[in-house]
């Protein structure tokens, strides 16, 4: 009882901090009353704390998932029949790195790339927020980009050599000094330069086919031994094609063959519409719940309502702090947790009514109600948290799903339950102690 004042202050502080984080970054304020003329935008500054090597940077913007912001999700099957054992794990990891490099070169912000394994079958999931024209992306990610140089044995046969894309230091677009045509300039590693020098020495006067993904890019005739460790591929390609080739070459070859088995793309407008609808549905639902609680429990209902508003503020602030990537099912999880959040209040208020009916004084009935109801609240919510845990699969167990939307739902529902324990029990208890004492 002694700590009521302190706890109320704590609640107010938490709510204000939460509110600061939860509101949108920019709030335009326009006020025109007589001589008073305010027209400005309040902007929250970004958090940027640096203590030694520890750096914390947050801008507290809501992170929206693919289905809300638009973007695509590609799932590829990885063909691992060629490798085994520890090599397999290594090959998959390097596959992930290569794809990541390719995607980054493509200029997608915050891509998410993960690999999964289920019953010996491996997959790689590539999520590209904001990218809705996936034709190019699929081609870029999926291309094997296997560069090799070959020797010509006779008219029909090409002999592959040990000079491959792995010997490449980097590739860039240049222009032929004579024709002005775009070309791809290669520079080799020291090992590659040596191999290239030997190869050109052997093939003077003969063509040296350059092969990318099984297709001959060009077959220049070698004039003399090239020792400098650099070469250029000129072919009949446009600037875009030359650029695409260099991106692929720089990103390296895929160590394992992959094939596209699932693709999901959501346009940005569809997501925005869904967000607006969800906000409207949430607001209406929340209002009905508030009215219902006040009708049913009068003054107590008002306290529950305050608790619910604080619940909303803290939850949204937590989404931004953690941060939680919000998806459409995630929003459903949040709204469902709003409906569940008042449950602890209802349990307690019902208990309070019973105790009052038995003739207990208000403060006494309140303490009994909170004490008794706590066991039920705890036991019941743990069961829901267990299910959330299985759905969210935070440890990435391979025998369970790692589907983004479902995970989003489970995480928001679990967070909602956690916060509702705080607002439904701690917040409303202290508010009621404060009000009923008076």
């Amino acid at each position, binding site marked *: 009882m002694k700590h009521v004042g302190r706890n109320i202050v704590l609640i107010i502080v938490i709510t204000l901090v939460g509110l600061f984080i939860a509101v949108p970054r920019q709030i335009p304020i326009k006020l025109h009353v007589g001589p008073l003329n305010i027209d400005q935008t309040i902007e929250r500054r970004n958090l940027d704390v640096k203590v030694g090597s520890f750096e914390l940077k947050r801008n507290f913007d809501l992170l929206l998932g693919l*289905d809300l912001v638009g973007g*695509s999700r590609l*799932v590829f*099957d990885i063909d691992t029949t060629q490798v085994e054992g520890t090599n397999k794990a290594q090959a998959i990891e390097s596959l992930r790195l290569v794809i990541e490099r390719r995607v980054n070169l493509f200029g997608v912000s915050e891509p998410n790339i993960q690999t999964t394994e289920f*019953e010996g079958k491996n997959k790689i999931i590539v999520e590209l927020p904001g990218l809705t024209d*996936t*034709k190019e992306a*699929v081609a870029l990610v999926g291309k094997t980009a296997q560069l090799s140089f070959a020797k010509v044995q006779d008219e029909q046969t090409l002999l592959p050599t040990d000079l491959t894309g792995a010997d490449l230091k980097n590739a860039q677009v240049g222009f032929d000094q004579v024709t002005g045509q775009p070309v791809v300039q290669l520079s080799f590693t020291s090992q590659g330069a040596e191999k290239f020098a030997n190869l050109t020495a052997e093939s003077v006067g003969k063509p040296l086919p350059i092969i990318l993904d099984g297709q001959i890019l060009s077959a220049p005739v070698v004039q003399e031994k090239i020792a400098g460790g650099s070469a250029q591929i000129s072919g009949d390609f446009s600037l875009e094609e030359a650029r695409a080739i260099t991106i692929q070459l720089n990103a390296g070859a895929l160590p394992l063959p992959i094939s*596209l*088995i*699932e*693709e*999901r*793309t*959501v*346009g940005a*407008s*569809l997501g925005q519409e*869904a967000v607006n*609808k*969800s906000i*409207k*549905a*949430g607001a*209406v*639902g929340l209002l*009905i*719940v508030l009215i*219902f609680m006040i009708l*049913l429990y009068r003054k107590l209902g008002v306290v529950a309502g305050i608790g619910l508003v604080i619940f909303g503020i803290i939850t949204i602030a937590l989404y931004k702090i953690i941060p939680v990537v919000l998806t459409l*099912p995630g*929003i*459903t999880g949040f*709204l*469902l947790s709003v*409906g*569940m959040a008042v*449950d602890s209040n*209802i*349990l307690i208020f*019902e208990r309070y009514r*019973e105790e009052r009916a038995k003739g207990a004084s208000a403060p006494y009935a309140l303490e009994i109600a909170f004490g*008794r109801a706590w066991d*039920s609240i705890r*036991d*019941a919510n*743990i*069961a*829901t948290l*267990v*299910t959330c845990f*299985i*759905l969210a699969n935070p440890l990435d167990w391979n*025998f*369970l*799903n790692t589907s983004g*939307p*479902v995970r989003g*739902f489970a995480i928001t*529902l679990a967070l909602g339950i956690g916060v509702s324990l705080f607002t439904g029990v701690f917040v409303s208890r202290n508010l009621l102690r404060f009000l009923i004492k008076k």
Partner: protein
Amino acid sequence: MAKEIIEKQFNWMKYRAVYTVISLICITIGLGTLFTSGLKLGVDFSGGAVLEYSFVNDISTEEASQKIQEKDITVSSVQKVQDKTYLFKLQTIAREQEGDISNILKELSKGEVTLNRFDNVGPTIGPELLKKTLYAVVIAAITILLWIAYQFRSIKFGLSATVATIHDALILIGSFALLSKYFGAEADFLFVTAVLTTLSFSVHDTIVVFDRIREIRRKNGGDIKDIANKALSETMRRSIANSLTIIFMLLALIVLGGSSTQWFAVALLIGTISGTYSSPFIAVPLLVTWDEALKRLRK
């Protein structure tokens, strides 16, 4: 009115047979539909392509599906979702074929087309998802059973609660088969999520009632039937009030929310109603019957 019921100590357990019959009828109708007409599966499970296009002009859905079929692509449905916006459900297509379809539709609608959404799922995904889902359900059910058995120091409580959750899952799956048959609802991965959420919600409610039974038994003791009646009377208002708040939220989502989560919200709604019903009318009667049977055996 509710207050009088509490004071009179309504004899809930007297109507045990009625509850069982109601549940059996619902489950039989639902599962009957499931086994005769099946459940329409979404692309998550069945594989296939879903494309949503917006056009400048409205188009004829028949003509569109005919033109697409001519390209050797099986069309399962073309649906108008909004003004000038259509949803195409097709077999799984090759990446390049999307361009063909765009071109056909450009011609038909006499203008530019916008691809709002494109889901293309190969046939290999479904079986894997199904297995993972099954694992999730089994793990959830066992964990919940053990948790309750541990909390109440009795396997009786755990099993009764588990039977109630299975009841809810069956009701939800059966109802969805009906919705699937008459309104074209599709079971996708979100539906599975709804089933799992229902499991947890059902247990949530059951624990509250069981908790009250345990408390009354400790304090007053007495016949299990009387204890159950008292516990049900005392928790009924809470149970209904809590379900109503969740139902309000879900109804708002169904009426006002986006189309992609509408069936998800409907499934959650069915689960909530069934979960509320099953705690007092399935789990508790089962517990009482079990307890009585044990006593009779001992005599």
